[in-house]
């Protein structure tokens, strides 16, 4: 079988631990310890566990620790299978394909930053706090509540020791009131939240009249490439194999084609090199390439950047 084009960063699981039962920490590195692609504090990566089993996790380490991606995964018995896979099927030495890091949190360099975490929602704040401590910044406070003992305090030990962290175990104490926590601080603070859905809802309510740039809710939404606001979903059909898949606006058509094992090669993925030129049968396609003439477009499409005007784009592949 011809090798697939590289679309991910190849890492090796170097180390794993279970600091408390049900939480698995994994250190991913390049096989030779080369630096990994850089990231911003609080960024996340997609981990390709198996075909069609891709999960997003926050990085727990700080950007200056640039030869590793550290993630912490809570075992969710009732989840969709990703965390169980991480806990039961992954071992030191195994290779894992991961995406480039995305997202991240921009703290206010001068004003107070308030971090509100619920349980394993601490992970992006581990990264942010490690980064702030590394840069000598102490203008933050972390309110961290968990349904049981806090899971990763050693990851931010200097912050805990310096008294910049309030930890609440909600098994033995009432669930903290987020509005009240935020009200303890002066105006001008920037607030960040990551945790279970009810916590995010409570946070949303507490900051509902704040200016947008002063708060951040971590929801792991996948990146969508800026797309045409009028674009509609369409069904991409491979005429030769009959395979088909719906492409939503902003979805990567290249990923859909790889997923369907289409026999098409890609290089630039930007509509300029011509490698992915494909004959189209039904459409018509929206041509976003920069090389085909009108005459050529009547038959062919640079599929890597194509859209579709109709409900189906059938291609000769």
């Amino acid at each position, binding site marked *: 079988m011809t090798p*697939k084009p590289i679309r*991910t960063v190849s890492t090796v699981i170097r180390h794993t631990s279970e600091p408390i039962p049900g939480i698995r920490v994994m250190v991913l590195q*390049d096989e030779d310890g*080369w*630096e990994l692609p850089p990231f911003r504090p609080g960024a996340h990566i997609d981990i390709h566990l198996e075909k069609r089993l891709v999960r997003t996790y926050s990085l727990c380490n700080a950007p200056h620790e640039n030869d590793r991606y550290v993630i912490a995964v809570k075992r969710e018995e009732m989840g969709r299978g990703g965390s169980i896979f991480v806990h039961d099927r992954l071992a030191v030495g195994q290779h894992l*394909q991961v995406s480039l890091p995305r997202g991240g949190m921009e703290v206010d360099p001068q004003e107070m930053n308030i971090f509100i975490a619920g349980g394993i929602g601490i992970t992006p704040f581990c990264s942010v706090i490690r980064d702030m401590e590394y840069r000598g910044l102490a203008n933050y406070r972390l309110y961290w509540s968990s349904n049981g003992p806090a899971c990763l305090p050693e990851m931010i030990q200097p912050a805990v020791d310096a008294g910049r962290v309030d930890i609440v175990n909600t098994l033995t104490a009432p669930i903290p009131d987020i509005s009240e926590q935020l009200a303890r601080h002066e105006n001008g603070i920037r607030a960040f939240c990551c945790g279970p859905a009810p916590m995010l809802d409570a946070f949303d309510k507490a900051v509902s009249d704040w200016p947008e740039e002063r708060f951040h809710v971590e929801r792991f939404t996948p990146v969508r490439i800026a797309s045409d606001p009028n674009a509609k979903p369409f069904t991409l059909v491979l005429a030769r194999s009959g395979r088909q898949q719906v492409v939503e606006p902003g979805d990567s058509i290249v990923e859909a084609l790889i997923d369907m094992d289409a026999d098409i090669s890609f290089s630039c*993925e*930007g509509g*300029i090199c011509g490698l992915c030129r494909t004959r189209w049968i039904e459409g018509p396609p929206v041509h976003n390439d920069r090389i085909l003439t009108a005459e050529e477009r009547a038959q062919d499409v640079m599929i890597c950047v194509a859209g579709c005007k109709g409900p189906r784009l059938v291609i000769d592949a």
Partner: protein
Amino acid sequence: MTIRETLETLTDATWSGVVCHLHKTPRAFLPMKNFETLQLVAGRGIEGDRYMIGNEAGFYSHKPEDGRQVTLFEIEALEAIRRDYGIEIAPIEHRRNVTVRGVPLNHLVFKKFWLGECLLEATRLSTPCKHIEEILGKPVFDPMVHRSGLNCRILQGGTVKVGDTVRPV
């Protein structure tokens, strides 16, 4: 003299450039690193670089490309992108192996030239890859469309050093 002849005199005789920076990375998407020297192997590529022919491994792989054993980039293009688009791209960020000054890369396609002690043959202009925007977090695809460097085959290998001369055959 026709324009073509003028161009040929220009590209065939009058230029002489210099190697400013050398970079490589062992795998896709990983940051490039600077080196003082690179080892070029005739017919294969750069020791330790991701495009070295014969080193592809595994299920996910770069397509080995005979004409892409070593890639060059003009430092003048980085300066032009800064001037025209206000975007700062460091030599280590363009993801080609050799940053040169004073070398008319766009005129060298199909030509042979010396890179220090190594003899190269230019195969085609490089095209940028859309992923570079994700890698750098900067909108550099458009600015790089017609100045994305040169792909070359290595006819005679050897050691390339920062400061080496680049010159026509």
